[in-house]
């Protein structure tokens, strides 16, 4: 210690008081108990609440506008129509969490469904084998995307824009632009349509495909939040360099993400056959952008690292609620599209402002 006759002696003299330092973990009195604080803190802890609230409000709003909307038939129609988009949105969420994007998901889905249909209906393969081979091709196409993104270090947008065209060309060549008719599938490979079947509860027909969507979403939620792989996916989207320095094998994880996304699209192909009843090379042309829309409305950041699986499913539902609600209210198709476009912009603006306010 310094005194008048002995000034500061050592260079670390100022550290002498450190032995008396406070050793308790910092804590503060909680004074943020007003309603708006509580709402904000709830939203910050559970960002998925935002799309959930939007979905609830839009269902209620359309219930008031179009009186047929809240009937069980309309609601189960929404679940049916959301299924395929929902599956693709799950795949898209994985990719977007790594700060990537997959524009080829729709083509992977249709090509996989063509392979399943051709093998089962024309080549006489048993349905389970045809489905497995179709899904394997879905995973393979995802793997190609992943290798190009991770090993050649190309931007995901460019890679999947390229493979979008490539898979599209392969799809038209493989199918010779011909559809597989519903009657043929029912006659030779009826189990391909299994996910289009379902059961009735109180007038609502629930399809196995819709249930499968919920199951897969739950599985992916678990994987992303409770396994190391899921944490690595988030970390890579957040900051790939930091992830690499932390000892994560970034390129292997990236490749696995794209391959899993392809596999999910391959599985969605089976669901889609059941949903539509036939296989057409020109079906699901809009599912690419619809899946991105659903993911974004669900609150997943296009910059990677933040987002949720549940949000994406909710996002897909929100879009479908708007489309169905507007059509029940007698609004023309193009205004439905217009509304979906507005929805994306509003959803992202709302999400951004809530996040800012909550920080």
């Amino acid at each position, binding site marked *: 210690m310094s005194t008048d006759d002995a000034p500061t002696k050592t260079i670390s003299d100022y550290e002498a008081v450190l032995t008396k330092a406070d050793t308790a973990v910092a804590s503060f009195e909680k004074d943020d108990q007003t309603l708006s604080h509580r709402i904000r803190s709830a939203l910050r802890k559970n960002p998925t609440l935002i799309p959930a609230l939007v979905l609830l409000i839009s269902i209620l709003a359309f219930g008031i506008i179009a009186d047929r909307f809240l009937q069980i038939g309309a609601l189960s129609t929404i679940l049916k129509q959301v299924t395929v988009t929902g599956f693709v949105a799950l795949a898209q969420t994985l990719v977007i969490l790594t700060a990537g994007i997959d524009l080829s998901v729709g083509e992977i889905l249709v090509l996989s469904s063509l392979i399943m249909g051709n093998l089962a209906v024309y080549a006489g393969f048993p349905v389970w084998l045809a489905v497995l081979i179709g899904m394997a091709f879905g995973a393979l196409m995802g793997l190609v995307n992943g290798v190009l993104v991770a090993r050649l270090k190309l931007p995901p947008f460019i890679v999947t824009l390229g493979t979008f065209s490539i898979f599209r060309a392969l799809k038209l060549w493989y199918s010779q632009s011909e559809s597989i008719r519903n009657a043929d599938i029912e006659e030779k490979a009826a189990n391909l349509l299994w996910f289009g079947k379902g059961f009735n509860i109180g007038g609502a027909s629930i399809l196995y495909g819709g249930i499968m969507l919920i199951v897969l979403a739950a599985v992916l939620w678990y994987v992303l939040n409770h*396994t*190391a792989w899921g944490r*690595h996916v988030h*970390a890579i989207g957040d900051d790939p360099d*930091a992830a690499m320095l932390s000892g994560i094998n970034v390129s292997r994880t990236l490749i696995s993400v794209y391959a899993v996304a392809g596999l999910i699209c391959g599985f969605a192909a089976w669901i889609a056959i059941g949903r539509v009843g036939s296989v057409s090379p020109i079906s699901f042309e809009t599912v690419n952008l619809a899946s991105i829309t659903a993911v974004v409305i669900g609150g997943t950041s296009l910059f990677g690292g933040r987002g949720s699986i549940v949000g994406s499913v909710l996002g897909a539902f929100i879009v479908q609620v708007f489309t169905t609600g507007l059509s029940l209210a007698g609004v023309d198709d193009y205004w439905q599209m217009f509304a979906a476009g507005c929805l994306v912009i509003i959803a992202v603006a709302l999400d951004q402002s809530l996040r800012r306010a909550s920080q």
Partner: protein
Amino acid sequence: MTDVQPILKARGLMKRYGTVVAINGSDFDLMPGEILAVIGDNGAGKSTLIKALSGAVTPDHGTIELDGKPVNFRSPDDARHAGIETVYQNLAMSPALSIADNMFLGREWRKPGIMGQVFRQMDRPRMEAFARQKLSELGLMTIQDINQAVETLSGGQRQGVAVARAAAFGSKVVILDEPTAALGVKESRRVLELIRDVRARGIPIILISHNMPHVFEVADRIHIHRLGRRLCVIRPQDYSMSDAVAFMTGAKLPEGVTEPV
């Protein structure tokens, strides 16, 4: 000293980024159980040297030996598996993930039994308790919630988390690149104590720092890096801080050393 072999040894390391030479035939020796400080001007190639030793950069030429065996790290993961743990200047953390998740990134603990083996579930409670304990050992008592995202921490707190991570998991060598640059007085002191603790466990430490009092306080030997090479290695007892600064800036040449061309 003759029969003590360096635990980490590098010879003739060379790394160019395009036309820029970062390290130019540098040697490096880390003895078992010592604290070796590396000092040098900005741009002298300290960080690149350290990255070559930690696997983040693959040198163009030169050899690295760990425990007398040649190693060829192709990624930081390789180096970590070999027991070399590093705190980088930019800290290498994922801002959106929690403190506990960051500390265990790439080496998550799984639950025992079927949940861990088949469903690969992480053991969050155990990881969180361990993270909290390590942060408390470091005196980082201002972190309120072990599950808060790293982006909500201050720069110094982040650095504390990174240092705690390296100290907790390093088994052969711990490399600290500017570990106290953003830390407060109390936390800096704790980091210096922690460095001594780690050495007391028998693990050697490489400390890169611009803080001469810290360097002279804890280091057993000081590696002075200049123009991409090891200029000399001195013992802090034999020289003053101003000598060290004179060597690293080129104001003075150490005895027996001729200026590299």
